[in-house]
């Protein structure tokens, strides 16, 4: 912890970075994002096992980018988000200063995207057993049961868009749901509006979601939205051999075309 404060204080004082995105103690025992811009603020940095939020969602926010070069304490989901954002040309190599806390508490600084790729190769990026269990439960349902499950969940949705705002991959300047000419998705938080919004969002994250679960954690109505995108990860891997957020130069499975692509799924 002290090592982190020391490093960040140095980085800020020699102006290597303009802001460091890390964690601080929040309210009611929560841990939250901290944007350290000077040595005083850096004193509040913490680095422990409560630092689970994926901070990569802040990297593309205009007001944060304006603060200068960004340093970030990236956990595994954040590192994968950075890789995915890089592959989508949203972050340039070496534009960020990326630190990660290793399981033994030591810190690693990455000099470039390649070193992050190497680090991720040896990291556990699998989903938890609890998540696997939930997915298995969903997959064992009949189509009708599954539809009922999601209908009940979506009924709770108030369309606050916290899921979208918390998602590091939902960075579109104008989300499909905000477009009104034509109006693709009903604005209302009624049955159809909620269903179309969540399915649209899940489909747009197919092959891009790095399963950090921020969408579900952000939901004030406790909708397990991560299960929607998780369920798309395996089919994408099976059909296209891609896992999101592992390579900075990966091509996005659903937006590339090769003349020798198999077309056996076209009827």
């Amino acid at each position, binding site marked *: 912890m002290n090592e982190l404060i020391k490093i960040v204080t140095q980085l800020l004082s020699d102006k290597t970075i303009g802001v460091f995105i890390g964690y601080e103690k*929040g*309210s*009611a025992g*929560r841990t*939250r*994002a901290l*944007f350290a811009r000077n040595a005083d603020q850096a004193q509040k940095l913490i680095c422990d096992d409560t630092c689970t939020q994926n901070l990569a*969602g*802040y990297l593309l*926010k*205009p*007001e*944060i980018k304006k603060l200068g070069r960004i340093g970030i304490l990236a956990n595994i989901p954040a590192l994968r988000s950075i890789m995915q954002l890089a592959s989508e040309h949203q972050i340039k190599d070496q534009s960020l200063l990326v630190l990660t806390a290793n399981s033994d508490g030591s810190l690693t600084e990455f000099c470039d995207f390649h070193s992050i790729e190497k680090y991720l190769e040896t990291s556990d990026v699998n989903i938890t057993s609890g998540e696997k269990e939930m997915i298995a439960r969903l997959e064992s349902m009949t189509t009708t049961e599954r539809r009922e499950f999601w209908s009940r969940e979506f009924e*709770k949705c*108030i*369309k*606050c*868009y*916290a899921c*979208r*705002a*918390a998602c590091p991959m939902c960075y579109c300047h104008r989300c499909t749901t*905000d477009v009104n000419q034509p109006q693709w998705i*009903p*604005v*209302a*938080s*009624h049955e159809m*509006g909620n269903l179309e919004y969540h399915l649209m969002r899940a489909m747009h994250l197919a092959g891009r979601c790095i399963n950090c679960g*921020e969408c579900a*954690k*952000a*939901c*004030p*109505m*406790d909708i397990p939205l991560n299960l929607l995108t998780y369920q798309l990860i395996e089919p994408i891997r099976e059909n296209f051999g891609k896992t999101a957020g592992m390579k900075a130069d990966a091509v996005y499975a659903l937006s590339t075309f090769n003349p020798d692509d198999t077309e056996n799924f076209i009827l």
Partner: protein
Amino acid sequence: MDKEIKILKYGDLPKLIGRFNSRGFKVLAPVRSGTIVEINPVGSFEEIVLDALLTRQSAKKVAFPKVEKVLEFDILKKGVVQHPVDPEACPETLLFGVRPCDACGFKSLDSIFGDTPADQFYLKKKEKTTIISFACTTADEYCFCTSVGGGPGNTDGSDLQFTPISPEELLVEILTDKGKEAAALFGDLLTDASTGTDKSQHLADVKVVFDVKNVVDKATSSFNDTEFWLDQSLRCIGCGACAFVCPTCACFDLQDEQNTKKGVRLRLWDSCGFSLFTLHTSGHNPREVQSQRWRQRIMHKFSYMPEQFNGVGCVGCGRCSRACPADMNIKEHLTSIAAQ
């Protein structure tokens, strides 16, 4: 009217709910729904959860639902024929077991929707709603009602308030004419309270953490301090969770949903936290960045509301802080504004 004080036995609550049900009231109360407690219609007392500190969403949805039809229309060759929706077409409702802060939230909504032009969709529903609040015997660190003029036993906005004064008894305060009418439905279950019955000793202890007058003054005078608002809001991710769970946030959007033959006009919750909220057709956005939107949220509640109506537009329930994915804690922010 002068307040009346009575005693009701806990054991008689099922009867009380039964009376309202059989009188044709739609009874809404906190009920468990999956992992959360929400205000929903109840058939019997057994479904009601009275020990939850707060429901996830506020009570505002009773009179200001997230989606509400305000007009129907037919699209004919000769033009559009409108079919108005009758605002009176709402049932007599009992809102039972909400907290004093929720009841108090309706006072802000009454001012907003009652202002010219009066919003009949809200007002009629509110008019037909009787509110029985339960005073708070517990609070958590997000609560700050006492800092914004409320309190765990505040009766503003309630028609009746029940305070648990022993494991068996509730102190009943009959506060309004509507409350008196409702109490008549269960008058036989009420007994006189002994003189000097004091509810305050049974209430939660919620410490005052800031002087609200300071918040109003400092928020207003800091309007142009962009650094200050940026500092406050860097963590904000720009969703609408705070506004949608807030008992006093009243902003809405109107959307037409139609096919080639007919359509409906819907009134939907909206939030000043969204960038789209102020986006002009020209592409210009007067609140271009999140710090300006956060400032608007604070200014509306602590500067514009006191200026326009009576009092601040915040009841200190802390729902926004609990719901915030980024831990924007309004109590903390207001404390720092007051201390500026």
